[in-house]
């Protein structure tokens, strides 16, 4: 810790004031208000709020649509994170050689991070377009099955998963490549001399040594797929068809701002906050115990 070197009675308060004011007004006030609102329900005419206690939460846990959304969110996050990371890791491991031009490859891999999830979705929406898109066209030579995401929930889900993986893939790969370059070649050579084959070497040495990178990317991708993909769903599928792609944040928005069920939406916000806290706590525990340095 640093020795304190400046003395001033009021200056430090002035310096922290902007951040503290913004934090209180736009973080603590809304967070606490979400908790308060979650205990109320609007009256039938919307003119006053009726206290319902745990009513909104009880309703949520019995609401089949909400539980479906929870499952949709978990599946979405799972596929985006696991497929995205596995693909990047396999390709990075195969491409792990001392070669020229890695900086150029990095530039060519990182740019999709700058594309908004909604725009990424729009690009893929057209690729998947049932009438004009290139993907259904190609698939039509293979099978007569109609890959129409307007009608089929799983195709719509595939569409948003692919768009999300695409957006994340470049930097997943770039980070794995960087992580692999940091593993000393001598370690792998020693294992090789001891008779370990490439697959054995990968699971016994490379994968454990990459765990900090995997952990970092896992956190980043989970947070992304749970909380930053609203635009993707809103711009592309509107949660549909039916509610096949209504992830949790989308449903909280829809119930709050289209359904105007403020209390019900606030209760969903409170559950999302608990989810974030749980994820963060899990990360801290995981970071302390499992990661190899």
């Amino acid at each position: 810790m640093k020795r304190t070197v400046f003395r001033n009675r009021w200056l430090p308060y002035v310096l922290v004031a902007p951040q503290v004011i913004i934090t209180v007004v736009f973080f603590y006030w809304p967070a606490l208000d979400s908790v308060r609102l979650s205990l109320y329900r609007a009256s039938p005419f919307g003119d006053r709020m009726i206290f319902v206690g745990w009513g909104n939460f009880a309703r949520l846990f019995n609401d089949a649509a909400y539980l479906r959304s929870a499952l949709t969110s978990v599946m979405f996050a799972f596929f985006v994170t696991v497929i995205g990371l596995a693909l990047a890791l396999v390709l990075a491991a195969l491409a792990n050689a001392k070669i020229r031009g890695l900086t150029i490859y990095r530039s060519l891999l990182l740019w999709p991070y700058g594309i908004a999830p909604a725009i990424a979705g729009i690009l893929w929406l057209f690729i998947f377009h049932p009438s004009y898109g290139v993907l259904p066209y190609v698939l039509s030579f293979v099978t007569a099955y109609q890959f129409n995401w307007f009608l089929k929930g799983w195709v719509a889900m595939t569409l948003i998963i692919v768009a999300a993986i695409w957006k994340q893939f470049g930097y997943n790969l770039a980070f794995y490549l960087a992580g692999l370059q940091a593993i000393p070649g001598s370690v792998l050579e020693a294992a090789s001399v001891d008779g370990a084959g490439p697959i054995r070497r990968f699971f016994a040495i490379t994968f454990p040594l990459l765990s900090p990178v995997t952990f970092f990317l896992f956190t980043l991708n989970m947070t992304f797929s749970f909380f930053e993909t609203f635009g993707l769903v809103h711009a592309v599928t509107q949660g549909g068809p039916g509610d096949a792609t209504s992830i949790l944040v989308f449903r909280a928005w829809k119930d709050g701002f289209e359904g105007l069920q403020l209390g019900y939406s606030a209760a969903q916000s409170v559950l999302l906050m608990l989810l974030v806290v749980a994820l963060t706590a899990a990360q801290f525990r995981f970071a302390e115990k499992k990661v190899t340095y």
Partner: protein
Amino acid sequence: MAVSTRAATAGDAVAAAEIIGRVPATRRRDWSGAIAHAILVASVVMLAFPLYYAFVISTQTLDEVTSLPPKLVPSTHMLQNYADAWTRAKMGRLLLNSAIVALAVAIGKIAISLLSAFAIVYFNFRGKQLVFWMIFITLMLPVPVRIVSTYQVISVLGWVDTYWGLTVPLMASATGTFLFRQYYQTIPDSLAEAAQLDGAGPLRFLWSFLLPLSKANIAALFVILFVYGWNDYLWPLIVTNSPEMRTAVIGIDSLIPRTSQLPEWNVAMAAAMMVLLPPVVVIVVMQRWFVKGLIETEK
């Protein structure tokens, strides 16, 4: 404890990321290099395909867009489509709004976190621990988990449909403060002592010593925040009503052909290209700082 462990993780990743830039060009076996190049080229091409396809569509006529098999080469209609998109979606205003939001969020958040981190590291004051933890907790909750209540706060303040409403709530997070705090703590005490001996007060020290030293961190944070501000979708959707206050990512929604409309995907893709270009350019141009920022802001 947990915090320092994670910092170590990030540190390793930084070290790893730096290495990518300076790999010696020695090859042990030629074929492994060839395989690596083949895989990397294939990845780069696959990654670029959706963007290329969108660009191609944005240069075609309506007939070409709807023809089968899909045409995968650029055509002649580019200027026409971009001009159409520009006037129909009022792109000028949308892009201006996005630029204002992205710059305000980036500059505003950098400014407030520089100041608060300076106060926390270089002063002792009553309530410092409270302030520290108050800011620390905000690391955990992103905007999407408290949308209804934040909107209500904005309407109480009368900020709905204003630039204030669009930007200030997005600054309420601690990432920047922690980045600067961690960095300040690595600066030797002797620097501040020397500055004091020269008669420099705290603000002089901040301006003439800390700020120049923090350039790389400021640049790193700027890239991340600019991209975040430009691309944020949920908050501008909620807090704006009038078309004039929409940002570009949500404003082009009206150009996306829905089932019953004329399939003018060429115009929609022209609009999409215009919206995605600025943040992508920022990332490519400021790539070194982008990688640094990506690692260090991910708490």
